Every structure is written in C-alpha cells, then in structure tokens.
C-alpha cells in the first residue's frame, strides 16, 4: 500500500491541484452530510470534472487499496456520505451537465451532480420528473440514485428506482459498466439503485420522465386529532383513490410550520391532512368532491382548498418547512424515517405518545400518510444533561415499534451509519449474509463506502468456484459421501 501523500499526488495529477482538497479548513465543509451529528475528516476530497476523472480516481484508490465515499450535494439524512478517515471523498458537484433531453422517448440523460429540480425544469412545461424529496432544490440525482429517494408524491408515482432506466457506473476496481433496464441479464440496475454508494459510483444517469398532469387540486383538511385524520386517509384509499400526495402533520408540527411560514394553517387543529389530487381534469374534479365528503364524514373541522397556484404554494411551503421550523420548538431534534402498514397508524402514534411521555420529550409528527412513512421529530436540548442520550434512545424505540408493526426502519432516508445498528431488528443473519453476497460481487475489497448499511463490518470471502465433477465420480468409481 502506497502512502497517503503518494495517492494525493496521483489524485492531483488526475483532477488538477485545485480540485483536490487536503487542508483541514477546506475539508471542514465535507466532514458531514445532512446529518451533522456524525463527523469525519477524510484524507482528501476530490472534485473530478468528468466521468473519466471519476474512473481514474477510483482506480487510483483501488491500486492504493484506499476506501472512498461518493458524495452529491450532501443533503442525505442517514450519514450515507459520511467520509471514511484516511479515505477519499469523491464529490460529484462538478458533474452537472444535462447530456440529453429526448422527450420523444420520455427520457433524459444527466450527470450525477445535476439537481433533482433541474431535471423537471429541463423537461418543462410538458413533462416532469416525479420523485421530489423535500431537498429537491439542491439534492443531486446521483445522491437520489444511491438512496432510492422518495418524496411526497411517491405514493402515486413511485420512487427513484421506478424512473432510472440506465446508468453508467464505475466499479470499485476502476472499471466502467453500462446498465440498461432493457438489457437481458440480472437486474443490476435494480440492485444498484438504493445501494447507498456501496456498489460503485454512477457517472451518468438515464431517467424516464412523464407528462405533467393536466390538473392539480390541493386541499388541507383540519381535524381534532391524528386519529380522525387517519380515518380520513383510510376512507380515501378504500374508495379506490391514489392521490398524488397525502401528507399529515400533528399539532406540534402545525404550530412550528405555521409560525415559520404564516401560510394560514389553523393553530387550533390537532392534525392537518394535505391531499393533492392530480391527473386528467374531469377525474380530478369528481375525485375532489369525494375527498371533501370523506374528510367531512371523518370529522374535519375546516377545509382549505387551494383556489390558485399561489395558495397551493403556501400549503406546500408550510409542509416542506416543517423540519426546519422545528427550531422554534426545540434547539435540536432527531428525525426518524420509520414506515408502518398504514392501517396501524393509530396504534403506532399512540405508542409514540406513550414513549414520549415516558422519556419526558416532545415528539412532533410529520408523515407521508399514504404510504405509512412517518417522520417523528424527537426534540431535545443538548445543553441539558442526559437529554441527547434520552432522545436517541427514544428515537430507537420508535423505530422498533415500526418494525414490530410490520414496517421498516427507513422509508426514504437510507440506512447509512445512522440506522445500521437497527438492521438486525428487521433482518436475520442469513438475510444480512445474502446482502453481503451482493455487495461482495460488486466490491470484493470493500472499498466503496465501507462501514455503511451493514450492522457490523464484514470481509468478503473467496468466490466459490463452479463445482467440477471429479473424473472418478463421473465414472462411478467414487462418490462424495
């Protein structure tokens, strides 16, 4: 293994000295992603300017047997882009070209550093790219691919993996492959999307885009409590509707979001249910009537229907500000990303309330109600002794309650470093071993984003060779027993 200094010299040769950062001040920006409680300073951060440079950087790391982590915009919420000490951080921010817009094939091809929102802008006004994480203004498509990002509209439209049709990938040995959704063979594209940067790094992304819906109708219904709002959700789904989005906020998050945005949410409500219907105009109109009736039947106290685009923006602004606005309630919070079968919503919310009372902490709830993806925000004050630890413990218990209800520890943020300790709550040893088989096929030396996803570090064994029948067995002289 060559020294770190030698590797840095090689990296400078590949990307240019300006694009290889090693000074601690310059590296400070890159020590964390969106989950700032985890920090690590890498050996170097490199900002390659082309796919070929990414490939050369990965190959240099392979030859030096130095681990590396790919990073997009760094908005991830699971520590997935946390650097590895003595490793290289590959920052893809300079790869931001839109390479092709082919609407006749409902397709765009982009570099990984392009932002999520830029894709919808590139295909406007006729088309759009549906997955829309709250960070869509800045988050990169490469990061979305790594995390299989969702967003508010995935109940109807699906996830990043639904839309990725092709990838150019640099594997950890520095070789480059093309994955195409229609190519015969194993669905490596499906395995790669959502693999959290542990199977390689995407340098080119082909995406499907879809026609922009003809009509959009957005309403917020206010209820006395989350139970009543939850029964409205069940009634809407039972009526055969798949709204573009169904989002719920509880009392605490309504108050924080309203104070921050003055959007017009009712401060006296115990729950707000945002329902957005989109699609053909006639279908939307009829369905909106049904939604209003079902909300009223479920006990909605007030309904606010967006009359124009400006009102729709206001409604969404409050929802999307909910996380940031929690600063008004508490100096810090843990955000969780558990998923439950939607029909268990009332049970799990009750359990969260009990746990919050027991731990003497406030928990605000914001969630994608259609798909049962909860974002409990566990509020705490780090200046109070023991509170961060209590908050972390509470956050963990909430995840366990989700798994016990038949759900998942993460719906869209990814496992990263943050939730890897909870993987055994969901998966057995043999399940984890099967995951490792996939990982080792792509990265037998464990250089791509090590220390993420899997609960404990593991090495890859030798690949078992194909079984060969011994000549004596074939002739019937000997058997293996």
């Amino acid at each position: 293994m060559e020294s770190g200094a030698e590797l840095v010299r090689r990296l400078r040769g590949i990307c240019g000295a300006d694009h290889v950062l090693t000074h601690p001040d310059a590296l400070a920006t890159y020590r964390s992603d969106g989950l700032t409680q985890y920090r690590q300073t890498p050996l170097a951060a490199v900002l390659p300017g082309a796919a070929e440079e990414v490939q050369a950087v990965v190959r240099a790391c392979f030859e030096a047997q130095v681990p590396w982590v790919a990073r997009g915009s760094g908005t991830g919420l699971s520590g997935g882009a946390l650097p590895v000490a003595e490793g290289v951080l590959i920052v893809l921010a300079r790869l931001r070209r839109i390479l092709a817009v082919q609407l006749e094939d409902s397709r765009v091809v982009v570099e990984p550093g392009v932002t999520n929102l830029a894709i919808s802008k590139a295909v406007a006004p006729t088309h759009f790219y549906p997955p829309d994480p709250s960070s869509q203004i800045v988050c990169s498509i490469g990061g979305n691919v790594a995390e299989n990002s969702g967003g508010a509209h995935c109940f109807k439209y699906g996830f990043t993996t639904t839309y990725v049709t092709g990838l150019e990938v640099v594997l950890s040995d520095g070789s480059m492959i093309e994955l195409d959704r229609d190519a015969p063979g194993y669905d490596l594209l499906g395995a790669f999307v959502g693999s959290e940067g542990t199977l390689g790094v995407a340098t080119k992304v082909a995406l499907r885009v879809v026609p922009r819906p003809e009509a959009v109708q957005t309403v917020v219904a206010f209820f006395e409590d989350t139970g009543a709002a939850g029964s409205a959700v069940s009634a809407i789904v039972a009526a055969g509707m798949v709204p573009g989005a169904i989002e719920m906020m509880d009392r605490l998050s309504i108050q924080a979001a309203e104070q921050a945005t003055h959007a017009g949410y009712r401060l006296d409500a115990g729950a707000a249910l945002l329902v957005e219907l989109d699609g053909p105009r006639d279908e939307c109109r009829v369905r909106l009537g049904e939604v209003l009736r079902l909300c009223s039947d479920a006990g909605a106290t007030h309904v606010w229907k967006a009359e124009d685009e400006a009102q729709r923006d206001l409604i969404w602004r409050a929802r999307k500000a909910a996380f940031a606005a929690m600063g008004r309630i508490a100096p810090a919070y843990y955000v969780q990303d558990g998923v439950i079968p939607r029909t268990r919503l009332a049970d799990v919310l009750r359990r969260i309330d009990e746990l919050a009372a027991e731990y003497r902490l406030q928990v605000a709830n914001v969630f994608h109600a259609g798909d049962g993806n909860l974002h409990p925000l566990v509020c705490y004050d780090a200046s109070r002794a023991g509170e961060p630890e209590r908050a972390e413990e509470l956050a963990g218990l909430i995840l366990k309650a989700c798994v016990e209800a038949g759900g998942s520890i993460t719906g869209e943020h990814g496992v990263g470093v943050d939730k890897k300790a909870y993987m055994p709550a969901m998966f057995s040893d043999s399940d984890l071993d099967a995951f490792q088989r996939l990982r080792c096929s792509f990265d037998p030396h464990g250089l791509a984003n090590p220390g993420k996803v899997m609960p404990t570090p593991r090495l890859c064994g030798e690949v078992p060779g194909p079984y060969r029948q011994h000549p004596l067995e074939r002739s019937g002289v000997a058997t293996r027993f």
Partner: protein
Amino acid sequence: VPTRRAPTSFEEAAAILREAGAAGQAVRVVGGGSKPWGAPAAPPAHEVLTASLDQILEHNEGDLTAVLQAGVPLARAQEKFTAAGQMLALDPFLGPGREATIGGIIATADAGPLRHRYGSPRDLILGMTVALSDGTIARSGGKVIKNVAGYDLGKLFCGSLGTLGMILSVSVRLHPRPAHTVTTLGVAGEADLASRSARALAAAPLELEALDVAWRGGHGGLLARCGGVEAQARAQRVAALMREAGLARIEVVEEDDELWARQRAGQRSSLRALLKVAGRPSTLAQVLRAADAGGATVVGRAALGVCFLELDPDALAGVAERLPPDSRAVLLDAPTAAKESVEVWGPAPEARLHELMRQLKARFDPAHVCNPGVFVGGI
C-alpha cells in the same frame, strides 16, 4: 428424467436445494410450467415443484398489499383481490389453463399491457424470501410500500430464471381495480403513422391504463385503455387525439376484455417463434417494418418500446438484422432446433458486465446447481 418433488414448507424446499448442491446435481424450479424460456440446456437431475407452496399468506386490504407463496396461480390471487376491488397490476398471458404462478411470472419478469401504467414485476415487489443452494433461507425488503432498508434482492431475482436460487414467497403492492374501463381503437395503414400516433398519445396527460400496438402485414392499430370514474369521457378525448394524429376507423369499445386478452395471447407462440424486442419507443416504426419483412405478427407496448413478434423460425435472422441498432431482442418461444441454432439472449454482455453477473451467480449459487446454462452468457 428428472426426479420431481413438491416441498410443502420453505425449510423442505431449502433442504432439497442444499442436497442438490452437496451432490452437485442441477435443479430446476417449476411453477405452472407455462414458460420454458431461456437457452436450451441439459435436463436437470431434479425438478422442484412449487405446486404445494400455494398459500395466499396475507391479503391486507386496507394497506393494499399481499404476501403470496411462489406457487400461487396468479389467476387465483386475482380472484381474491378482485373481490375487494383491488388487483395485482400484472397481466401477462397465463397459459392455456391459466396455470402461471406468481413465482414463475417473477422469475421470468413477464408482464402484459398493464406494464404501461404500473410497471413490470420488479416495480410491484415489496419483498421476497428465497432459498439458496447452500440451504440458506433469506428475506429482503418487507411488506410496506415504501422501504429502503437493505439491498433490493427482489429485483435481482426478478427475471433471473431460477439461476440464483428458488423464490419461496413474495410480498406485493396492490392497486385499486378501476371500476370501469373503456378502450379506444384506431387503425393505421403504415408504420410511421402508428409510431407517430403512439407518441402523441403517450405525451398526453391522460393516465392511460394501457397503450398497445397490434400489427400485421403493414397494417394495424393502437389500443388505448382508460380506467376510472370518468373513463368514458376520457375515451372520447383519446378518440379525438387519434383522429388528429391521422388514425382511421376510430371506435370506442365498452366491453373491452376480449381485446386485451388477444393482446396478451399475442405475447406467446406455441407453434412458431416469439421474439421480444425492447428499444427506444421512438423507433417503433422500424420494429414494425422489420416485422413486416419477416411476415411477423406484432403486439406490444406502444409507449414503452417493447414489442412481441410472432414469426416463422426461418424468418428470425432476416428480422433481427432489420431491427433498430440499439434495440435488444430475446427469443422466448421457439422449437428446440431453432433455439439451438441461435443465441436466444442475443449477443453476450460486455466482458466486465458478464464477469459481474458470473460473480453474482457464484456467490448466490455457490454449488452452481440452480438451473445452469439457461441464462445470459451461458450462466
């Protein structure tokens, strides 16, 4: 002649695979037996039938999810879902006796016209339990519709033709079954018109359930299916768009099940050959002309660039060389002699990609006994 066993539990299935693995004897999993696809290979020593793993383990109506053992015939599962106003949005051809099982459909990644709106099996699977040739039983994913914990092994096993292991059960996402459907038909007398019209319909914000092409001898048409409370009104809008695009003999059909059954049946061939072609949607006209040159009958997903060509085996080479250069053709059905004379999967994958697939095979099937030789590149 292979031995046949029909395990009644996951553990028993895993034990059969482990024994076959230890003995180094090839094993093939058989569901309904309706899709003998893949490259011709020597008969396996053992067949594992999923016939006794046929329980619908869960149907969570309120959550629109279900958990099915691999041997459940899709037709039976759909009856149950239909009773609740729901469906698993997968509608491949189910075989002459509607015998196709969920395990077989997933192992072959087979899909029908609903792929237009709902995707293929990979898009509807939430979780999967598999058995491997070392006796391991492993689960990935879950049974909620949104979940990114762990690797997506379900997608890896989708379309893997039993070469990585045996699918034991899957959890799937369900959708509301549209209360009404109405189909609009339009006729085209030349390929460019069909292709152009398909693009116009695909770009319109109509949320079609399906958009298919049917074609034979330089002539054919498009079928667009609308679903939902306002399906009839939308079908009229589709008709207007078709007229504008230049299609002729436009017709709105209310009782449309038979039309779509015919499209599904066109994806298979019991006597001739069936070539599946996937490419850019905008190259549809070129695919249709290639089909015409070989006397092929075509059904396909007009907006997705997926076509199924039924033709005489003798015409395969001539059609293949006229297909768009970036399209991929796979020979699904054909008499054995025809399959033996061509590469059914098309050209082998690029070397590094091929190596990666072989690595996966070696790690998931360390004994190298799971349906060997049938898959891409000799895997």
